[in-house]
């Protein structure tokens, strides 16, 4: 039997992709996994309308993320075109927290 799938926005790839659906053996939550490895979890026993609503909220929340790699690539492309722009304005403060 083929695995159930659903088209869901992938935050990592920044596009809609096919996710394979499965159930967590540990708690019954639905795991929707993209080929890239990224996954999204949904509550056990969820109904279709709520499932679709959560998928839509997930897309809205994650569209537009720029990975560090993409930001560096963009910067390089900008630098090739505008060599005089060499000192972009930096934010004034950071407050980092290191986590494990």
């Amino acid at each position, binding site marked *: 039997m083929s695995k159930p799938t659903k088209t869901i926005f992938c935050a990592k790839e920044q596009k809609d992709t096919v996710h394979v659906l499965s159930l967590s053996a540990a708690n019954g939550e639905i795991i929707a996994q993209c080929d890239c490895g990224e996954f999204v979890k949904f509550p056990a026993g969820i109904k279709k309308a709520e499932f679709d609503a959560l998928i839509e909220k997930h897309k809205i929340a994650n569209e537009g993320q720029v990975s560090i790699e993409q930001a560096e690539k963009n910067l390089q492309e900008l630098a090739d075109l505008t060599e005089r722009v060499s000192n972009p304005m930096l*934010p004034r403060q950071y407050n980092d927290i290191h986590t494990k």
Partner: protein
Amino acid sequence: MAATATWYADHGTQTGSPTKGTSRDAASDVNWKNSDVQANVYSSYPITDGTNSYEIWLNCKFTSGSFNNVLAGLFAHTLTAFAGGLVLKGTPACTGDGDKLAYTTPSITANTNLTTTMTSAIAIGSGVAVFFGATGPEATGKASTTDGSADKYTNFLTTQLQVSGAAAGDTAQVTLTLQYNEN
């Protein structure tokens, strides 16, 4: 003058209205684990594969007198990738007072209110918006800018580590960043 900003995390059963944790502890280094007790060592409370960590309900406090205004808050995972089988979920953008998350008692159930995927390190400029306000992260009246007339707080910056098919052992140490402007 540089704003003094300190991380805190709420823990325990939700209490009050608006809701907050039973306790609020300073948190310079936090760990996703199978426990909501800050003092519990993460290595003794591993997350079972297929389940999730307890949520971590962070906020940042700005001490009165150390700043005139703070504004333009952004929150993101900015450094070091997670290994496969791990997904970090986080607070949605706060672009209105009604957007802030209400504290709920931490659990290991996947929290569907944490709509932002924070697994990959991203440019802080594409992080989620953060608002500021008085009294505490739970309090109403959050706005994009706040003055230094009293101690001020961000909205809750909640995260949860979700696990499916991860290798056993410690995760990488990652950096979550709160960026803000001050004047």
